[in-house]
């Protein structure tokens, strides 16, 4: 167990190292890094100042060491556009993203779990086929397109929901559904397979042999057990949602970290782009690490593999 955790920690460290190295190198091989690191429209003198500030004339490994040093101090530089510290800017946008992700998660679970259970209980019947179609559609429709179509119907034609912005619960509905859509399909698939496994278990068989009503067998003996892997996945997906929300947040002008990344790209605000990727990537690596360890604690078989 200890060995597994150490191994997994090492892997996460390599991931983070690769992430930082990739970003560091990409900045330096894609033309003149000073141009990227300077504000758009900087003068030749400004560029020169940037070069000395970042030591761009020094050897690469020294530059990398100083780059890493800044990261460890949570120093991601100043935003060109907002004129504030990027890390603080990111943190100030995070609550909105978390709120959206939480709402999207709620939607995906409310849709995904019941449909997954129905599909499993009625496996290979028409309910299961409908579930399959639903899951396939979820994976085949880009989330931002779902968002646009919803705007067309609920804002333009029906006028029920605001098409963009934030502030009220109504503002949250469409972005949450658009973002949660793909995840609802994923959660449905996992609930279905997890439920099928539990329904085939000996303890569910015994529950039926006891003469319990089928509704009780499913709601008591199968449901709880089937939910464990789904909720674990949901935990990971919450963090992933924060990070893939960039397009949905852009569609609905939702003021989260995804929208921040989009603004960074649109305004060529490089420190913002860099910080968004580094922080988002770190979050995902850490959550993956946490889940792998959690799984190993729950299921001893994993520890002995690989």
């Amino acid at each position: 167990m200890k060995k597994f955790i150490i191994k997994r920690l090492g892997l996460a460290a390599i991931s983070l190292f690769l992430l930082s190295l990739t970003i560091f190198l990409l900045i330096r091989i894609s033309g003149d890094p000073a141009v990227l690191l300077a504000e758009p429209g900087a003068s030749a003198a400004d560029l020169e100042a940037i070069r000395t500030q970042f030591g761009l004339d020094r050897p690469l490994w020294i530059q990398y060491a100083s780059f890493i040093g800044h990261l460890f101090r949570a120093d991601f530089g100043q935003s060109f556009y907002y004129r504030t510290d990027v890390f603080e800017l990111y943190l100030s946008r995070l609550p909105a993203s978390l709120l959206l992700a939480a709402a999207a998660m709620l939607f995906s679970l409310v849709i995904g779990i019941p449909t997954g259970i129905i599909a499993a209980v009625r496996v290979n019947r028409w309910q299961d086929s409908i579930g399959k179609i639903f899951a396939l559609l979820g994976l085949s429709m880009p989330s931002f397109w779902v968002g646009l179509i919803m705007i067309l119907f609920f804002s333009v034609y029906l006028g029920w929901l605001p098409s963009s912005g934030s502030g009220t619960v109504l503002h949250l509905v469409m972005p949450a559904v658009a973002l949660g859509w793909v995840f609802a399909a994923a959660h449905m698939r996992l609930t279905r397979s997890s439920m099928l496994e539990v329904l085939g278990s000996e303890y569910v068989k015994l529950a039926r042999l006891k003469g319990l009503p089928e509704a009780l067998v499913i709601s008591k003996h199968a449901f709880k057990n089937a939910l464990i892997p789904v909720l674990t996945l949901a935990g990971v997906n919450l963090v992933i949602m924060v990070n893939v929300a960039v397009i949905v947040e852009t569609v609905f002008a939702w003021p989260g970290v995804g929208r921040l990344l989009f603004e960074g790209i649109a305004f060529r605000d490089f420190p913002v782009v860099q910080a968004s990727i580094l922080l988002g990537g770190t979050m995902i690596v850490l959550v993956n690490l946490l889940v792998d360890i959690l799984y190993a604690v729950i299921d001893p078989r994993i520890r002995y593999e690989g």
Partner: protein
Amino acid sequence: MTGPLLDIRRLSTHYVSARGTRVTRAVDDVSLSLDQGQTLGIVGESGSGKTTLALTLLRMLPPAARIVSGEMLFEGSDLLKKREGEMRRIRGKRIAMILQDPMMSLNPLFTVGDQVAEPIRVHEGAPRRTAWRRATELLKAVRIAAPERRVREYPHQLSGGMRQRIVGAIAISCEPKILIADEPTTSLDLTIQAQYLKLLRDLQRSHNLALIFITHNLGIVAKMCDQVAVMYAGRLVEAGPVKQIYNAPAHPYTQALLESIPRLGDSRQRLTAIEGQPPDPASPPPGCAFHPRCPKVMDRCRSEAPPEFRVADAQTSRCWLSTPASR
């Protein structure tokens, strides 16, 4: 009540493949009867249809299975004619079953007490507290130490032997008429196996249960049962009182099975195992299914399946050697 407690008449259960092209006759034309307080051992190799027969009795078959024909009279009324709701009130209350793997039969997320009390609450509508008190008593009945503490524990806190006993406690919780035990001891070591068999036997006697004991081990049947039924490829090849069959087995398969178990005072150095493989249940050989392995095979066996012959009082055999003429 007249007639036996359970009377199975010419029962057949088939598995049909997804496209309906392959039919496996898992239970084929089986007739059996069982009286109150009697113990019946069903013996056969794996794939002979023992478990399917048990699941048919409770109407708990997987979706691919079809009960094709026959009757199952329990206390005089046919279980096959009952609606699912009526069947549910019989399962666990009138007919209980212990599964092949009792170790995996407890739900890891609920306490022992909850799981033992569950059938009492569902079938008798007993309030929670009463049901829990009964659950504690049941744990005592299956000889679990400190039952007041154990009811509050979760399955993973208990040893394998204890979990086994708890599954037994669940089975007898509603005082069923029939208890079916499907190879309940295969996963146990010998000492615990013997203890568990003794417990089952004691429970059977004290509750006057009819016990159906499914196993591949004729030796256990000799200790546990009054009646025995031998299954081969979905058919009942021989049935009757244990003593009678042990002394005078009529069917060559039973004879081979008996030769393969050690007996007291046996001077042989090696046990004879039955040669050849059990048949593929999906495509059994024509005629008598046992003929490819039978030491006494005759021409007739290869083409014609023998019907059931009465060889002695209450003893039947499906073998051409058991015809009144050949005896």
